[in-house]
């Protein structure tokens, strides 16, 4: 078969491939050790990585450096294992690195994360780290070799390591009206920083004391130390954090509330706040007053937006259908908002982070119940090849789609004659600072983003 190799020609996709295999391209998450990003998300905590020379920066550079350009100083301690550590073991080298790290780095908590090399050669990392723990050094470890899972499962591993090895046992009193939050995966979601600020803001608005634990609104390790005192845990995501919450329930007898849909927009957010108020036994009048003030602000803006939304339908081919290709948390949240607030048709939803099998039926059920009069189907697929294939095979005729996805969808969105809004890893055409897409305020930013994209694509470049 002749294959053209000219610079400008795409290779033809020749055979119809239907069977899913182990292969994975256009990768949308990183490995278990990528949870070093979660450590960096805790103020004044430092990851110490025991792995090959490229691992730490590869994980960090992709998830933080390029993904929304969230940050990019590479100072992560790493053993940078060589043939020596592969052949003779790396425990001695790890010990040397920990000792030097304690000398030079100013940090309140150190988290040792292992990579494939250490986990394969079988270094006894626990005994190296326990020596420092006995000396009172705030240090924990987790075995996060890349073959063990992705950064979602790695996140729960390091969370558990910090709880079990650093926070420790607690049987003192509970603080009524305080809550620990387990929600989006830091850095993986490019908007997590702004989103965590909004989550904390609205929960404080109804009178809760919030341990947000990650991000700049967190007080750092003191907040983690206080974690067992909280009245309850709030898991605000379809599944991530549930393992941690169940562990805390067992360890401290601390109950948890699971809200699978992160609220976007006034209707969702108000309902969420009422649910939390009821669960935690908060002052309902205070909650209603907060909701009223937030809704007034929100709907004033929405009313002004109506001039655009209803006035330019002909002029700009406003999208009428959504395609959401992302991790489950944003997928569910955005679909709920887009369908209920804007009235778009849910076209194709594909969840890309490979959630554990046991959580999938519950996620499917949420999609089927996306609105009173609308149901949506969802697929689970992590290989970019099939993600795109499924979208390409869907009939969108009569619709202009808006694709919520990643940089991988640049070409796809163009071919669909639709619009691309980057919401997931990797988002490398998007610079993100404090922007949030959730809650009352984030919803407005999301509307701005969608319709700015539409107008820009529809007018002269």
């Amino acid at each position, binding site marked *: 078969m002749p294959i053209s190799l000219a610079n400008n020609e795409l290779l033809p996709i020749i055979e119809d491939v239907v069977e899913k295999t182990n*292969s994975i391209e256009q*990768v949308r998450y990183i490995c278990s050790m990528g949870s070093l990003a979660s450590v960096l998300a805790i103020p004044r905590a430092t990851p110490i990585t025991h792995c090959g020379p490229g691992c730490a920066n590869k994980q960090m550079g992709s998830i933080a450096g390029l993904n929304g350009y969230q940050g990019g100083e590479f100072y992560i301690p790493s053993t940078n294992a060589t043939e020596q550590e592969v052949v003779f073991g790396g425990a001695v080298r790890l010990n040397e*690195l920990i000792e030097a790290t304690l000398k030079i780095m100013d940090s309140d908590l150190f988290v040792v994360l292992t990579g494939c090399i250490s986990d394969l050669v079988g270094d006894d990392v626990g005994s190296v780290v326990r020596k420092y723990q006995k000396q009172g050094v705030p240090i924990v470890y987790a075995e996060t070799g890349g073959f063990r899972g992705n950064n979602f499962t790695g996140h729960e591993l390091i969370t558990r390591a910090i709880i079990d090895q650093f926070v420790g046992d607690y049987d003192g009193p509970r603080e009524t009206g305080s809550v620990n939050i387990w929600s989006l995966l830091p850095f993986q979601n490019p908007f997590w920083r702004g989103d965590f600020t909004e989550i904390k803001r609205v929960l404080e608005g109804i009178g809760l004391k919030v341990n947000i634990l990650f991000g700049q609104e967190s007080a750092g390790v003191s907040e983690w130390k206080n974690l067992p005192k909280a009245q309850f845990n709030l898991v605000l995501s379809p599944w991530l954090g549930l393992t941690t919450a169940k562990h805390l329930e067992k360890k401290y007898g601390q109950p948890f509330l699971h809200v699978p849909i992160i609220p976007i927009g006034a209707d969702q957010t108000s309902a969420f706040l009422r649910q939390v108020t009821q669960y935690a036994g908060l002052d309902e009048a205070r909650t209603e007053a907060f909701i009223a003030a937030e809704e007034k602000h929100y709907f004033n803006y929405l009313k002004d937006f109506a001039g655009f939304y209803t006035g330019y339908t002909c002029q700009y081919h406003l999208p009428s259908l959504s395609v959401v290709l992302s991790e489950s948390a944003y997928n569910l949240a955005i679909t709920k908002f887009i369908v209920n607030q804007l009235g778009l048709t849910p076209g194709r939803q594909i969840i890309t982070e490979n959630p554990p099998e046991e959580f999938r039926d519950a996620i499917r059920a949420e999609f089927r119940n996306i609105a009173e009069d609308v149901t949506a189907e969802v697929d689970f697929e992590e290989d970019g090849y099939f993600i795109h294939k499924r979208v390409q095979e869907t009939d969108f005729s009569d619709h202009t789609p808006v694709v919520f996805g990643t940089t991988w969808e640049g070409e796809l969105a163009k071919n669909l004659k639709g619009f691309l809004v980057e919401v997931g890893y990797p988002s490398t055409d998007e610079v993100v600072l404090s922007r949030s897409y959730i809650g009352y305020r984030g919803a407005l930013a999301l509307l701005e983003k969608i319709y700015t994209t539409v107008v820009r694509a529809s007018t002269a470049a």
Partner: protein
Amino acid sequence: MTINLKTSEVPNREQRLGTIIRWEGVASDLVLDSHATYGPKKNCGQQGRKLCELDSPFTQGNMCAECVTIGQGIMIKGSVVIQHSPIGCAAIQAMISRLNRDMTNQRGWKLENPRLICSNLTEDDMVFGGLAKLEQTIRDAWKRYHPAVILIATSCATGIIGDDVDSLSSKLEAEIGVKVVPMHCEGFRAKHWSSGFDISGHAILRQLVNKNPTKKQDDLVNVLHLGGPDIYTPMLAKLGLRCNLVMGGSTMSQLEQLPEAAATAAMCTVLSYLAAGLEQEYGVPEVKVPTPYGLKATDEWLREVARITHREDRVEEVIASEHARIKPQLDRLRKDLKGKKGYIAAGATFAHGLIADLRELEVEVDGVLSFHHDPVYDSNDVEQDMLAEAIQTFGDVPHYTVSISQHFQAYTSLHRSKPDFIIARHNMAALAASLGIPGAQIRFFNDGVGYDGLLRIGELIRRTLLTKKFSQSLAAHSSLPYKQWWLDQTDPFALSRKEVTPEGNSHANFSCQ
């Protein structure tokens, strides 16, 4: 060292060239010690001592050979690159995608996602081996894209579990009828990532060039570069030469033609392996003068290309007209930049080249941080030594630090140098900004090359100096994650020094090769 194409593995740079990643001192000493230890005449009447490398108990993550190998492989048009690895190695895909999108724009290619597929190994594969998955992924690569070549990059995990990638590659190459090329790039096998360039060069030499060239193309020059805009075609056209621009985005037919060319010029010394191999195997002469950064080196580079390709008659005219062309802008830049102090943190070739560019612009340079140091290149010709050339032309560099992009050491050396600006690679500019020093990060590899590169760097510095307000506002509100005693340090290797000896001298913890 002779290049051995019989095996699929390449000895790493520390084995071949004596490459080091930690050193500190006066630049001229590094040159003398390098030549004395590894030069062709090894210590025959030369000054210089045995080249030694410092130790460091503290190390920070950097890059690995796999990142580099993947990056080079995917820039071969029509290729599919398989990462035979657990999913973590595939974090590089986002970075490759970004680079690909930028180059697509610069080189006028059609937008498409890079064809990178990970075999996605998991815990069971560590026990039972990963070859079945690799075989599946090779078949998937063929079915999905019918590529011109399938390149396979190994990983630390597959190196340790011992997957026989070579045998499987041969088997499937015979069955599918397309080249299946293993690239052994386990990260732990080399202490510096630049070994990855040798690995991709090795793959090209072994399996992708036309091994029986029937003709010579006397006006064709192979230019090996790392990607970025094509600045070489216009440069060579002035001598009536055509440019075969490879490594950073070439087609298979360009690679096949490599042995037919009249000369090879590696635009980065980390690409010397392929250049040396083409000379050794096919008699294509390598341009063995320093890479063209700054006026003098660019003049000499053009003269050498002209000499090899028999175009001496027109080269002086080209040089004179180029000098005249850039003079007005160069004069303006020198006027603006004279007396400013710059700092350089980059890979070895960049670092050496930028010394020339900055000093040509009359910028003062007293501190340089190079991410590694090759005492010799694969040609084993010390005439090619860029650092020696930069020092001979422009004078010594009093504080020359070799540090494998170590953030804590870059901090210390910047703190010592206190420059007006920094030009950097690998995110060191962000560090500088938090210290109140305006920083520019070079993303594309050709930015400082040739006459126009000199102007480009000058303009870059001018723009960079404008960000001083940003850096200063940031510095007033930033902190670094180090303890105060380190923040007070001015010796990047303070942690490497042993305790003070009984004789009262402090000894550096050197290990000699």
